[in-house]
């Protein structure tokens, strides 16, 4: 594994992004501790330069770290399974990585989410010269550091573990899960049904909220769409895994989310889970922009525009997700007259 060029590309992107982030975070510390926007002395001017540099470094670091995360995702989903004996998709790779692989993915996700939140605040902050969000932005940027360090640590552990892994059986892992769930099949089925209906209802509620946000960005709560979106993302993932994926694979009882990324299924997983990620990120952007609008009236105008932009993003991602996740199922129902499990 350590010889694979994609592993090298991943580490190059992660190391470069990490260097940019560390440089920016060091400058952000000065801003966080000593920011005094009411003063115009030489120290404050130096801090303003630091704030500008930290912002630039943060944007570039976010770009590089996103590239690293995407390279890692492509590796797990499409490339590295060929290096693991017995693996056929990302499930096998994660099986070989043990818990370190899942931990690395979680910490990468949290780091990028925090940096995305910082990006939203920075985008609002630069709209007005008062710099009312500069200190908050610096604090948020620095707070990503422990998560990023853990992401790098667990990525290293996971990739090193793959190097010496014995034979895995990713399909056996999926089928074992199905078989072990056979005794609890009623509970599993009801969970899948609850998640399916919640994802449909949550999706409809989100769409309605977003239409309202586009028309009236200055009204309503920003936290509500974020909470619904986060809960919806979990329900939609479970529903897709248990129900929607069967219409791609054309078989029941193969609840494997990673196979959706394979070229055999046109890499649909990238677009479907990408849609889920956009919904979560933009809902958090709405929450942050709404919070900013309430606390700092001077930024109400830019925050309203940001809310509208995020709402459009969520609507677009929801439409894409719905078409890709439910489209094959509806096409199957129209073609055959029944759902895949035999129910009319």
């Amino acid at each position, binding site marked *: 594994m*350590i*010889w*694979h*060029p*994609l592993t*090298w*590309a991943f580490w*190059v*992107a992660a190391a*470069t992004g990490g*260097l*940019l982030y560390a*440089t920016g975070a060091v400058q952000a510390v000065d801003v966080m501790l000593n920011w005094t926007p009411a003063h115009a002395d030489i120290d404050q*001017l130096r801090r303003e*330069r630091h704030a*500008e*540099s930290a912002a*630039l*470094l943060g944007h*570039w670091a976010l770009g*590089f770290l996103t*590239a690293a995360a995407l*390279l890692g995702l*492509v590796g797990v989903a*499409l*490339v590295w399974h*060929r*290096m693991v*004996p017995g693996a056929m998709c990302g499930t096998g790779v994660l099986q070989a990585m043990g818990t370190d692989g899942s931990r690395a993915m979680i910490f990468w996700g949290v780091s990028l989410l925090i940096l995305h939140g910082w990006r939203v605040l920075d985008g609002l902050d630069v709209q007005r010269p008062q710099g009312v969000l500069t200190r908050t932005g610096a604090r948020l940027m620095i707070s990503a550091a422990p998560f990023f360090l853990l992401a790098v640590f667990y990525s290293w552990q996971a990739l090193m573990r793959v190097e010496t892994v014995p*034979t895995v059986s990713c399909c056996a892992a999926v089928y074992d899960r199905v078989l072990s769930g056979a005794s609890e099949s009623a509970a599993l089925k009801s969970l899948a049904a609850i998640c399916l209906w919640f994802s449909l209802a949550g999706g409809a509620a989100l769409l309605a909220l977003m239409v309202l946000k586009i028309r009236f960005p200055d009204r309503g709560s920003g936290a509500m769409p974020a909470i619904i979106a986060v809960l919806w993302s979990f329900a939609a993932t479970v529903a897709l895994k248990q129900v929607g994926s069967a219409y791609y694979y054309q078989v029941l009882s193969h609840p494997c989310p990673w196979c959706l990324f394979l070229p055999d299924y046109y890499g649909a997983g990238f677009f479907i889970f990408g849609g889920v990620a956009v919904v979560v990120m933009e809902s958090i952007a709405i929450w942050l922009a709404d919070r900013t609008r309430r606390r700092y009236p001077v930024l109400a105008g830019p925050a309203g525009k940001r809310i509208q932009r995020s709402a459009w993003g969520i609507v677009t991602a929801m439409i894409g997700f719905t078409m890709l996740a439910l489209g094959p199922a509806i096409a199957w129902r129209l073609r055959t007259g029944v759902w895949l499990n035999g129910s009319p």
Partner: protein
Amino acid sequence: MMPGTRYPPMVIWAARDIQRHCGRSMLLFACLASLVFLTAMALLFSQALDATWERLMDQAPDLVVRRIDGGGWAPLPVDVAMACAKKIPGVIDPTPRLWGVVPGPEGPVTVVASIAVVPESMLKGIPPPSAGQAVVGQGVARALSGGRLSLGSNHSVTVSVIHTFPADTGLATHDLVWMTPDDARPLLGLVPGQASDLAVHLFRREEERAIQADLAAAFPWPVRITDRSTSALNHHTRAVRSGGIAVVAGIPALLALLLIITGTVVDNTARQAYWGLLKSMGWTTADMVRLQVSRAMIVGIPAVVLGLASAYAAVFYPPAAGITAFWVTGGQHLPALTLVSSGAAMVMIEIAAMVGLPFLAAVFLTTLRAADGSPWTLLQADPWN
């Protein structure tokens, strides 16, 4: 400046800046292009080997059974082996194969006498040899004298060559000689009723590992069983490792990248007074970063594209592919080598990430470092000051 109109004037400014430092830009272009070419060629070659091997392995039998004894490989009694293999549920179509390595006129060649050894797709349109005839690979054909081939040392056999394998199958057939079983047996030291090994196909390919223990227990002598997945994994690991080692061997090229980066650092540091002038006219640090990044991308993107395109041509278009293979592996020169290009796009993305990202980061960081000071401090850096 409006966001929508921010970039084109900046790009034009950057292009003029490049024009003003033409020699330096050309040097940067050449360094980047050759670095990408050297790295991409090694990785594309290993990827191409892997893809070609994978395609060949896909047509290979699910299991290959070889009899072994204290001295290593031993001839396999065909009737006993067939009867033992057929007893195992899931085994279909066990096929005895006759093949081995024998001395040729210019080194060892691989003699095959049963078509089960060679994938069927390679034999399309080739007439099977009769007694005293042979079909040979491109490497063997070059050593022929008068269309006749003499093989073996103790029991030499001379055959007339009636056909050669196509050039695009060179990776598998370069040193191959296909002849009749009766001609091959004296060369391989086998008597009638004996085979080199047994190719086994399975009703379900997924059972290739599970069935091995039952199959080994069914034979009255020790056997070694090789499954297709293990062979494919070994080939894949070898190809990836050779690519990785080739990149490590290209450390001088990486040092060249360091030189480029250092050059960029020196360039930016020397221009501090210029940055101070721009800053005192109202440019922000972000504007200067955009200018330098635009400048780097105007030079860097064509350089990376040219390097990748040259590497692609060197690996996938014969006769350049043969020269590349000879250079990378140090093995035989295969002038008509044709490799499978699937997966090349991923390698190109990897190279672009490995070279492009550090380069852009170096440009960004050095510009930021050089242009981060106050205008007055930057103007003080002017050598005329």
